[in-house]
């Protein structure tokens, strides 16, 4: 029989609080920035569909060196950061100060065996949510019919576009789309 959520520790550790209070802002920021950069590097490498070994080959480094880079503990030199940005085909500023993560490209296709219900209002995020967000210049495809009983739509959103809305379909579809 399943129990509820785990019991939270009843006595918070004073030692953890002490350690936090003893950590200077310089120490905290160094740690955070190193981990953020490592996470950023990992994301960019994966976005290129590379693994660490492939990235190491392109950087002409040993895989163990890349492991250190991604550990969140490495203290990079400016030259190394510049080389990394070059290999990743990005700028140093983009590497260090990425734009706010947004939905970069989004596509969904929903098929239904039921005919469209005229009483249900279908909201296309490209028209509704983006207008609310003040986004212009959207390229989208309107509703497409693949036959009498099947339908679907696709919507391609350019980069740097932020979605704030959701699209709900008929209840028997049970599909909800999320946006970054």
């Amino acid at each position: 029989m399943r129990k509820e959520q785990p019991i939270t520790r009843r006595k918070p550790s004073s030692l953890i609080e002490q350690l936090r209070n003893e950590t200077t802002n310089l120490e905290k920021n160094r740690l955070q920035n190193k981990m953020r950069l490592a996470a950023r590097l990992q994301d960019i490498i994966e976005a290129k569909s590379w693994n660490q070994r492939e990235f190491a080959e392109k950087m002409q480094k040993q895989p163990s060196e890349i492991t250190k880079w991604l550990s969140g503990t490495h203290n990079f030199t400016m030259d190394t950061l510049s080389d990394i940005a070059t290999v990743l085909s990005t700028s140093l500023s983009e590497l260090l100060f990425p734009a706010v993560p947004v939905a970069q490209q989004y596509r969904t296709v929903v098929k239904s065996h039921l005919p469209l219900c005229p009483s249900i209002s279908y909201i296309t995020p490209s028209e509704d949510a983006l207008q609310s967000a003040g986004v212009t210049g959207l390229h989208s495809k309107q509703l497409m019919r693949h036959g009498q009983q099947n339908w679907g739509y696709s919507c391609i959103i350019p980069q740097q576009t932020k979605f704030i809305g959701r699209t709900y379909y008929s209840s028997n579809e049970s599909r909800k789309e999320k946006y970054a």
Partner: protein
Amino acid sequence: MKYQIVELIEFSGKVAAIYSILPEGSETTLFDDFLNRYKDTHREGLKNIEGRITMISDETGARSIFFKENEGKPGDGVCALYDNPDHQLRLYCIRYGSGIVILGDGGPKPPGVRAWQDDEALSRPAEQMIEISRQITERIKEGDISHGPDGSYLEGDLDFDDEVENGEMQD
């Protein structure tokens, strides 16, 4: 050792939930014991580990790149957190994806020691987490523990009554 998996509210953040092992009859978790044991000799290392856990829970998630992986058996999730820059401490954990980490005990890794198997002080906490991971995996297979719909928390029967001592099951 009978134990319970408890959530550490000081750490559990927006991105990952952090747990530890609370032995029956004890008021301190294995992670607490690790902190208390080395608070005088490796305080800077503990501060660094605390900061890394906080970042993991609040921002980056428990990415595999932040852990020393494969410290246990293949696929059991047992790994180690270490301090920077000295890398003197090892904190053994169980990682389930990027959303769940269970902190155990650990200790200093002496220079020249390549693996925990070569050091008696590290063997105990490592083998302990390997056994705990095995038990958790069994319950996951039986459906008594799950990771939550988005893999960001544990739910189910987190009380363990089986005896675990020195990494071996008691009959």
